[in-house]
């Protein structure tokens, strides 16, 4: 089963809509609640990162009996140093975004903790692709 959602950079009023839609589908598919909880954390963080840091993006969700594979692809500034970005507390979020309670620099580490496999590729000036794998077996 495959699903696709679009994400608008900068539009915080829609941030989380895709994650919420995916959560509903996983519940309907009777995916174990603990698995849903973990994937939702990783997915939401990825979705908000596109909203907060990139120009636009897409989420692709591919569900099969063994695993859920999520790809979050964006067009945006990219991440120059992924190792640095992964460190808890590192953030380039703007003041306005921080005032909303984002920009703690915890998103990527939340993703790391809640994904079975996390893979990030990025090209400066072009965009970022995040792959999250959640194993079902």
């Amino acid at each position: 089963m495959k699903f696709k959602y679009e994400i608008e950079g900068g539009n915080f009023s829609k941030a989380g809509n895709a994650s919420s839609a995916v959560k509903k589908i996983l519940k309907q598919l009777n995916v174990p609640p603990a698995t849903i909880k973990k994937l939702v954390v990783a997915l939401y963080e990825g979705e908000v990162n596109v909203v907060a840091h990139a120009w636009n993006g897409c989420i692709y969700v591919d569900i099969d009996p063994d695993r859920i594979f999520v790809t979050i692809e964006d067009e945006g500034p990219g991440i120059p140093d992924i190792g640095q970005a992964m460190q808890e507390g590192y953030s380039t979020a703007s003041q306005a975004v921080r005032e909303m309670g984002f920009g703690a620099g915890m998103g990527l580490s939340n993703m790391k903790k809640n994904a079975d496999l996390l893979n990030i590729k990025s090209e400066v000036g072009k965009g970022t692709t995040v792959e999250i794998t959640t194993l079902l077996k």
Partner: protein
Amino acid sequence: MTVNEIVEGLNLSVFGGKKGLSREVTGGYISDLLSDVMGNASEGDIWATLQTHKNVMAVASLKEVAAVILVKGLIPDEDMLAQSNEEELPVLGTEMETFELAGKLYGLIKK
């Protein structure tokens, strides 16, 4: 303990999500950083914050917290309130500062 029992115990105002007042509260979490809540709050927590915008509801709903409490007399933005009603996830309010609220909440929930 239900959300409603906490509302009555601490004399909180109910801004929205009245239909969710019977939700069960199993703990509490206090933070104004959304990724911190995303990473560390648990289902069934009551969440106290000073953030009053719609993204609070997105996080609250994805984490399935029992309710949100706004501190220091803060009032939810209109779209936050709309989502609270839609999802039947209560948004509550108090004049108390976070420190005082936290102490009282802890006393109630851990009893």
